[in-house]
């Protein structure tokens, strides 16, 4: 049982930034700094009260056997609190049921994701990034505890072992970790520790109960929106409905007359109403008479954005990859196929609407929120308040869905701007409509793609030109180099043997709209295009889509493995009703090999229903198998919502969708049966949060082609088959 997830309280967290810490071991484990902080030097009594073993930023053990694991990664449903804990607990030799978890405070130094170099939870990277550092963090503490015990018993440390929170000697003497804390804390932190041989794992790879579940079924779990600070007021906000516009004027006389409304706060591009509760704030907002200065984007429409993109796509792009010689190879092909693919803007629509609670005083700022980038939250608050970062405390909470939305801190910037003008703590909550209309959107992409087949029907020339926004150019500018970023083009190189391959990128930013990370980022777009187009080639040569793929996967045994497993479990080739067919997709992105088979029904009226999805996954070393299955199931459903209906459109510079009525998402009666099959091996761990989302759209689109003969080249599928 989870004792406590201390990410919600009103108390100050243990905050490493408020303690003195000394970095003793640099660059251990994938560039991560293992920091040791020393007890505060404010008197002997305080030192005793504070006695604990904390050899690094992830593990703290107290004399009373309290073991606290500090979670570098944020929990947004992906199960990372459990898998991160498993990595530490495996090496620390403690029972998962005996640990307390704590959300990491803001610190790019202590909690940077080794792969990206800053504090971030995203990109399906948590296990990949922390696989070694967290096991090392646990092992370091274990080694020190064993040393302390061996010294007490006057025996060789090698003769002792650690087990379930105790050190045990060769003759059966036992000491709990708590009893060893004081002695162990005085030992130097070892530079190098041996990690367990994977064959000796007792926890990693076993289905562990999720540590965050019990409090999520009884209403006790605290999300950012649940922060309750004494004396807190509530606010809701309207930002200019046109991106880039400003607040011109507001008449608040009617709003201020509403019982419970306390204040109307104006900032550059938005207005907020502060009240005693959300209801007062909502009513107050509705009663405002607001005049906006729409700014330069008042005439933007989806059509105007796409038109601009189509024009841009006619120019050469930056070459992101070139194998062989496409221009030459395409001359001599037996058959040439050209296509255009498009994917729409998408909102995230996480179930927890955007919110942020802030308390600004003249020399401090506290923030209660659920955010995927904790240190960036601190940085933006420092900028808005003018306070130094160490005066900003971010109390991170559970996230009611992230999906990439909470990789951006725009909501925190805005909340701090508002709270600066308010006395006391303020909870700012967006309405669902505000959440849908002020998102950072998954970019629209316009893709031109060409393939040339030889006389045997094999693709020997391939050209793909992607036109659209670069999210990373804004979000992590250093990754945008030589005209492209690695994410926008990830997954565009299919895993097949393609001797002459040319990939170009034309950057084209939509006016009046900010684009952001959305589950599966670049690959969600690219794998749809590539796996649909491969299906087009198979159809053009009258080959079975599975056979066609197999014939080109000679170099990737792991991909072939998941393809074969998925089609076998799906019963590929087995008869189906006339209006039901199967479609397949294959992908290798984010370090994980995956294949999906979707079984789709298309009625005479053009109604699409996804009945069953079978998915085979090879993500290398498995930490918590049930969580992997859950992530794939959920990822598929998230991807299905988008593939079937997801679409954000603009008119007069304004987003046309509002709420779940016109931004439709999958409901339980529309959810397919899903089967996930895991390949077990000891390869390096791959990512799992996003891969399920990525390959579902092409699998469904390919199945639709098999039923109807109509190729889906533009998402969402929506009513495309009805007009057919």
């Amino acid at each position: 049982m989870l004792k406590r997830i201390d990410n919600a309280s009103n108390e100050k967290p243990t905050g490493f930034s408020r303690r003195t810490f000394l970095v003793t071991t640099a660059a251990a484990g994938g560039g991560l700094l293992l920091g040791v902080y020393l007890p505060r030097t404010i008197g002997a009594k305080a030192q005793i009260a504070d006695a604990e073993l904390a050899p690094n930023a992830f593990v703290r053990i107290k004399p009373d056997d309290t073991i606290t694991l500090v979670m570098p990664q944020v929990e947004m449903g992906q199960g990372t609190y459990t898998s991160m804990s498993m990595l530490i607990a495996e090496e620390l030799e403690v029972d998962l049921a005996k640990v307390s978890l704590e959300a990491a405070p803001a610190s790019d130094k202590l909690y940077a994701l080794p792969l990206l170099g800053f504090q971030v939870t995203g990109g399906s990277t948590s296990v990949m990034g922390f696989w070694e550092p967290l096991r090392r963090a646990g092992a370091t503490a274990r080694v020190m505890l064993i040393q302390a015990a061996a010294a007490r018993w006057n025996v060789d440390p090698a003769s002792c072992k650690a087990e379930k929170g105790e050190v045990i000697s060769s003759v059966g003497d036992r000491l709990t970790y708590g009893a060893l804390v004081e002695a162990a804390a005085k030992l130097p932190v070892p530079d190098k520790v041996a990690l367990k041989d994977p064959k000796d794992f007792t926890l990693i790879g076993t289905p562990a109960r999720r540590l965050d579940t019990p409090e999520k079924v009884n209403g006790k779990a605290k999300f950012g929106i649940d922060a309750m600070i004494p004396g807190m007021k509530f606010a809701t906000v309207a930002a200019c409905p046109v991106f880039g516009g400003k607040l011109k004027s507001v008449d608040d006389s009617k709003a201020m007359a509403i019982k419970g409304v306390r204040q109307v706060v104006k900032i550059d591009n938005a207005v907020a109403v502060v009240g005693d509760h959300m209801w007062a704030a909502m009513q107050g907002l509705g009663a405002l008479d607001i005049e906006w200065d729409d700014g330069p984007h008042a005439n933007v429409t989806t059509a105007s954005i796409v038109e601009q993109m189509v024009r841009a796509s006619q120019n050469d792009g930056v070459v992101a990859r070139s194998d062989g010689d496409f221009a030459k190879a395409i001359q001599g092909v037996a058959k040439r196929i050209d296509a255009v693919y498009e994917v729409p803007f998408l909102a995230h629509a996480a179930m927890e609407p955007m919110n942020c609670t802030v308390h600004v005083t003249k020399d401090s700022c506290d923030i209660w929120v659920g955010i995927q980038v904790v240190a960036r939250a601190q940085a933006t608050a420092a900028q808005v308040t003018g306070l130094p970062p160490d005066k900003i405390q971010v109390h991170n909470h559970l996230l009611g869905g992230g999906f990439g939305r909470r990789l951006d801190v725009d909501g925190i910037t805005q909340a701090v701007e508002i709270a600066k003008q308010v006395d006391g703590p303020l909870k700012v909550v967006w309405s669902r409509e505000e959440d849908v209309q002020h998102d950072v959107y998954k970019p629209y992409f316009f893709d031109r793609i060409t393939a040339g087949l030889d006389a045997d029907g094999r693709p020997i020339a391939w050209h793909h030109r992607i036109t659209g926004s670069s999210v990373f150019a804004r979000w992590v500018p250093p990754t945008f180099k030589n005209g492209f970023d690695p994410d926008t083009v990830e997954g565009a190189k299919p895993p097949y043997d393609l001797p002459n391959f040319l990939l170009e990128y034309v950057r084209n930013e939509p006016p009046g709209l900010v684009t952001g990370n959305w589950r599966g980022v670049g690959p969600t777009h690219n794998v749809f295009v590539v796996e649909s187009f491969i299906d087009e080639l198979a159809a053009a040569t009258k080959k079975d889509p599975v056979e066609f793929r197999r014939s080109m996967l000679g170099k990737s045994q792991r991909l072939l493995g998941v393809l074969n497993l998925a089609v076998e479990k799906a019963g590929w080739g087995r008869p189906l009703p006339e209006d039901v067919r199967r479609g397949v997709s294959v992908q290798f992105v984010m370090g994980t090999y995956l294949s999906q088979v979707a079984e789709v029904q298309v009625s005479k009226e053009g109604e699409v229903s996804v009945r069953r999805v079978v998915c085979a996954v090879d993500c290398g070393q498995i930490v918590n198998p049930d969580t992997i299955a859950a992530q794939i199931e959920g990822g598929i459903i998230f991807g299905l919502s988008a593939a079937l209906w997801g679409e954000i459109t603009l008119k007069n510079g304004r987003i046309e969708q509002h709420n779940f009525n016109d931004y439709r998402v999958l409901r339980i009666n529309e959810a397919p049966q899903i089967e996930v099959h895991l390949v077990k091996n000891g390869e390096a761990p791959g990512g799992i949060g996003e891969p399920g989302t990525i390959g579902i759209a092409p699998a469904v689109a390919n199945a639709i082609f098999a039923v109807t003969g109509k190729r889906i080249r533009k998402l969402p599928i929506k009513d495309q088959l009805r007009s057919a």
Partner: protein
Amino acid sequence: MPKLVINGQAQDLDVPDDMPLLWVLRDVIGLTGTKFGCGVALCGACTVHLDGRPIRSCITPVSNVVGKKITTIEAIGETESGAKIQQAWLNIEVVQCGYCQSGQIMSAVALLESNPNPTDAEIDTAMSGNICRCGTYPRIRAAIKQASQSA
């Protein structure tokens, strides 16, 4: 000054009559287990029980529930069906982010109370008003089945 009975406790409140129950629960009483998702009864995150029936608290004015028995996620485990559903949710590991799950559980308990052995189609119908963006639907189906079969 509406008087409400929430999770067995009488509450004297100084709130406007038209204030939705959701905000009374969350912002006035501090029962934050009931969630805000859409504000217009489209997503089910705010589901609570009114005399045992599921209602969307985001559109229910507090004046409509005066004198009636309101049960929220914080107390649903005290009922037999509530405990069963919560246990099944744990057994099946339904939950991901968890934000919608209070509402899912309240709808599932109400289903089981009115129909102890629901079919798949009946589960889908009863639960179709509750959106989950994490996509826990297959496990919700399995957990309701399991709860309905447990003694």
